[in-house]
């Protein structure tokens, strides 16, 4: 009974006939509007204030957060020349080098890059075993992982993804959705310790900065201490 001629046609016809009677998905747009998703952040456009100046502060937060690097901008340079750009990055000067690298196919140096941190995966494996490797228990798994490591290391998330079969992007989405889950060590001291551990050069700089600013009461002083 593996191959019956015309069975596929019959199945397809049955499917479309069932769809024929099902409720329809159309939203009659001008009359009714779909609910806006809770994560919607508004229109992507540059706004002007009442004096006609751009409200954009050129803080680069949007460009940094953009997952597909589609946002790109310039801004006021050190001599106060005002030029906001948008459009293909190779059309303006301050990005020319980087985009040239991109177009030539070489890797672009990323100042925000952190090397992959290997961690002890025994804890994650134990937690996963307790939850029977079930991706439906993702939130308890993530909470237990955070309790074990203090935060959610990327290596642990990757391990969870491998063992449960859930997509890394989905796990990442779940973890970013909940406010009590974090990807960094929790407190400032922990963070400082982590920086010392993983980025010795930066830690040394911060320590030097702290000693140089001794007594001036700047917040940076405690960071390296």
């Amino acid at each position, binding site marked *: 009974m593996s191959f019956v001629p015309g069975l596929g046609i019959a199945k397809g016809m049955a499917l479309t006939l069932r*769809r024929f009677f099902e409720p329809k998905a159309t939203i009659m747009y001008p009359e009714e509007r779909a609910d806006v998703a809770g994560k919607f952040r508004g229109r992507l456009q540059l706004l002007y204030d009442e004096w006609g100046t751009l409200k954009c502060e050129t803080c680069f937060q949007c460009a940094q957060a953009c997952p597909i690097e589609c946002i790109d901008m310039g801004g006021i340079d050190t001599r106060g020349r005002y030029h906001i750009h948008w459009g293909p990055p190779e059309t303006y000067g301050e990005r020319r080098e980087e985009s040239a690298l991109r177009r030539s196919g070489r890797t672009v140096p990323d100042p925000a890059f952190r090397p992959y941190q290997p961690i002890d995966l025994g804890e994650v494996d134990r937690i996963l075993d307790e939850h029977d490797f079930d991706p439906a228990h993702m939130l308890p798994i993530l909470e237990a992982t955070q309790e074990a490591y203090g935060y959610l290391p990327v290596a642990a998330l990757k391990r969870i993804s491998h063992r449960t079969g859930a997509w890394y992007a989905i796990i990442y989405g779940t973890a970013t959705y909940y406010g009590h889950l974090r990807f960094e060590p929790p407190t400032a001291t922990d963070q400082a310790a982590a920086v010392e551990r993983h980025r010795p050069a930066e830690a040394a700089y911060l320590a030097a900065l702290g000693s140089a600013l001794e007594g001036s009461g700047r917040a940076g002083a405690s960071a390296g201490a």
Partner: protein
Amino acid sequence: MTVVSRGWNRLTLPGKFLFILVPLLIVATAALIILITAFGQLALDTLAANLPIVRFVVAATVILLITVPTAFLIIYMEMKIIALMNLRIGPDRVGPFGSLLSVVHGLKVLMKEDFTPTGADSVVFTWAPVVVYLASVMTLLVIPFAPGLYGADLNIGLLYFFAVSGLAVVGLLMAGWSSYNKYSLLGGLRAAAQIVSYEIPLTLSVVGLLLLAGTMSLNQLVENQQGWFTDWYIFQQPLGALILFIAATAEANRTPFDLTEADSEIVAGFATEYSGMRFGFFFFAEYVNVFIVSALFVTLFLGGWNAPFALPEAWQVQLSLDPASFNIGLLFIIALAPVVLTLLFAAPFWLVSSRIKWWQALLIGFVLANVFIVTLAVAWAYIGLNWVAGILWFMLKTYVLVFTFVWMRGTLPRVRIDQLMGFAWKWLLPASLLNLFVTAAAIVVIGR
């Protein structure tokens, strides 16, 4: 400014129209009455003396005219049904449930520029859509819609049908050739190859049926299938019916065999250079073809205008109601029945619920009375008039088949050109020959 011009200027625009039209209408009516009294009898006698010619002219006109609403209806069905199968709503803005959208499409096509490419053979270019359209319209002439309701009862009706529908290939080739465009020419050749290939199994598939029936007259074929639905030829010729259905799908250029103008892949095949109403005629011909192919299948295999059941004689109601026998009473019935029925149907709603206002009850009563009257009229026509029952069953069966064609278009993916040709020559042709030989052998053995 004279009195006349001032009076004329004071009239509103509708007033001006009426001022001209009303006297014209009166004069025209008077002239018509005089003409009818003077030459009416003569005209009637002349028409009666040339009944075959009159019958032909009337049939040709009616058939030419009904193709347009038929095409509109099928275009609407296609849009709506495929939309519903896609979990969409489909047309819903123009007319009730969007049913006038296809009419709007027709008007749009009519208003577009009628373009002829430079270098095109303009005579052939103009006549190609006419040939394609007429080839499909002329086949309607032999299809029996109801007992006594057909254009012509040719004794070679089926042969005529296939011969005339074969003319469409000429039109397609004309369109492809005269467009002065190599892609149109290729499209025309491709369409011709497909249609000619499928014409062979299409024609061979009904030969077995002809052996069984012993006639080529479509009217006679339908009359042979009278009785219960088990008397339909589809139960004696299932393979033939299947082959006819598949080949007819290809003949009408329907999915999964719509390679002649595969919308999503090639531009429009032979019709690339066409625009405006000339393109509209190709478009119309396609949808009329769907209707014709369904009608042919119904006529040959699904009993035509026969009801699927045959009630015993004792059950049949003899309705001998002559409206003229009421004399002047008929006038009162026509005048009073709607009012009385409206009040009658409105009364229970008004009495039962105090929340329904009197005008709402009257509205409901009016709608219900209309439904009641229409139902009564249709029932009376169904029982009393043979051809009304016939055309109802015929149209029901035909549109079920049209729905099936649309349904297939909503489901099946398009085949490749080599699969298409291979299927015609390697599967349908042997199958139709097998059907023919088995039928012939069965007739010899059983001796029917």
